[in-house]
């Protein structure tokens, strides 16, 4: 069962990658744009640390870790989550989702994996490079344990973001024009450039539970800079599991009520 799913995911990934490989010029466009975004982030940091030695207890190189995680997760969202969720919206709008639903496989798996934008992974690579550089610079003690916890928290954050997007996309079964909620997410995600601890408490609550920026960006960065406590780690695991289950139930519930657009 599991093996078949993995094979399915691999096939979809390969197909999307082959499709993207046709447009090689897009790689350079993406590279250029990713570098500009990174430069912007770095100049912003330089500007802040031109005036102060630490921002709410974060040293320059530690904030660079935040920038790295932000870029890395942002790349994953844009490469894997975003294109698929947009496709659900288009599918509901144009009636093409019906073709997916008639296939004899798990529908959530199909809609979540069918599309993948290879070139957006440039951000993931840049993010990782920045992370490695920053971690080496801090000379933080990052052993196997820290690396495992970091990966675990990152995965939890990613799953929470995925669940949120899936829930938003599911709403399109009832309300077709839901684009603006995606925009809302993207706008709120910008706040993750900085550790959520600097924001006032009401905003921090929004960034933790409504839009999981705190879990997706700040918590992994905390794991690498020896800031993450066990409490936050457990919370991340629980919230990730809960949101995954909740979004799956919501998707199933949505499907039962979905009548299709073309029928």
């Amino acid at each position: 069962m599991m093996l078949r799913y993995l094979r399915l995911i691999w096939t979809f990934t390969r197909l999307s990658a082959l499709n993207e490989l046709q447009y090689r010029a897009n790689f350079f466009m993406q590279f250029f744009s990713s570098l500009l975004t990174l430069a912007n982030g770095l100049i912003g940091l330089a500007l802040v640390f031109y005036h102060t030695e630490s921002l709410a207890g974060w040293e320059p190189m530690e904030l660079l870790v935040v920038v790295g995680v932000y870029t890395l997760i942002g790349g994953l969202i844009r490469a894997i989550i975003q294109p698929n969720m947009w496709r659900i919206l288009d599918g509901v709008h144009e009636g093409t989702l019906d073709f997916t639903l008639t296939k004899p496989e798990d529908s959530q798996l199909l809609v979540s994996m069918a599309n993948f934008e290879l070139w957006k992974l440039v951000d993931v690579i840049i993010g990782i490079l920045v992370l490695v550089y920053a971690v080496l610079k801090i000379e933080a003690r990052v052993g196997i344990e820290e690396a495992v916890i970091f990966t675990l928290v990152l995965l939890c954050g990613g799953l929470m973001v995925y669940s949120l997007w899936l829930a938003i996309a599911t709403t399109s079964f009832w309300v077709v024009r839901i684009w603006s909620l995606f925009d809302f997410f993207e706008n709120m995600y910008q706040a993750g450039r900085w550790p959520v601890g600097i924001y006032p408490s009401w905003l921090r609550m929004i960034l933790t539970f409504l839009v999981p920026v705190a879990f997706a960006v700040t918590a992994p960065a905390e794991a690498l800079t020896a800031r993450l406590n066990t409490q936050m780690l457990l919370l991340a695991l629980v919230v990730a599991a809960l949101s995954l289950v909740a979004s799956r139930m919501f998707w199933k519930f949505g499907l039962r009520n979905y009548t299709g657009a073309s029928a």
Partner: protein
Amino acid sequence: MLRTLKILLAETKISMMASFQYRVQEGMALLGLLVESLVYLVVWTTIARAQGGSVGGYTEGEFAGYFIAWTFVRHMTTGWSPWWMEMRIRRGEFNTLLLRPIHPYFVDMGRMMGMKSIAMFTLVPTIFLLSLIFRPEFALIPWSLLTLLPALVLAFLLRYTLMYALAVTAFWTTRVTALFELWFAVEFFTSGRVAPLSVLPEWALNIANVLPFQWMFAFPLELLLGRLSPQEALHGFLMQALWLTGTAIVVRLVWRSAVKQYAAVGG
């Protein structure tokens, strides 16, 4: 001239109605502005607090004032996306626009005026709310407020015209996005968007001074906050006028050959 004005107003009316239709979309766009300014506000007030109250001539409350007024000025001076132009050209929608007996420059301008005026209904209460939360400090000086409107109009016209000059290159290459991304990256730091200009190190300020971006944003913003002397304000208006004249001439020159160059896509 009068006819152009009439069409401009008609387009304004149409787009006012359209944005009223898509209230939610507009609200979300506004939210984007808010999140961005809120992030800067928090970062800079945190730094000001850590540095004993002020940075680059701004206290905590003055930073709050800067970034709350920021949302208003940013909203007034933007609203036009280069991707929109690229998309119109790629899809062939530009053809119909070119056939109309009015320059597309004015059609787009009318549309933006409509969108901006409708958004005021949400922007003004939001600014009020933000002021209650963050307690901004600013000086309301009568003469600067009186000159604010022309400064905003000139800032908008300058940014819009310069973007038009750049967008026209889309007639030669259908990929102007890279060019615009470079523009936005430079504008980010030299216009006063990410931080007040007085916070920049000297070498960055020198770069900002030879570029037009501060006259499109920081100038009206500082005027609104009452931070400029009459001499500085006069200098600002002069720079705005100078840059605007220059870019207007460029657009006029480039436009003619661009339209000749234009290869229609689709039907």
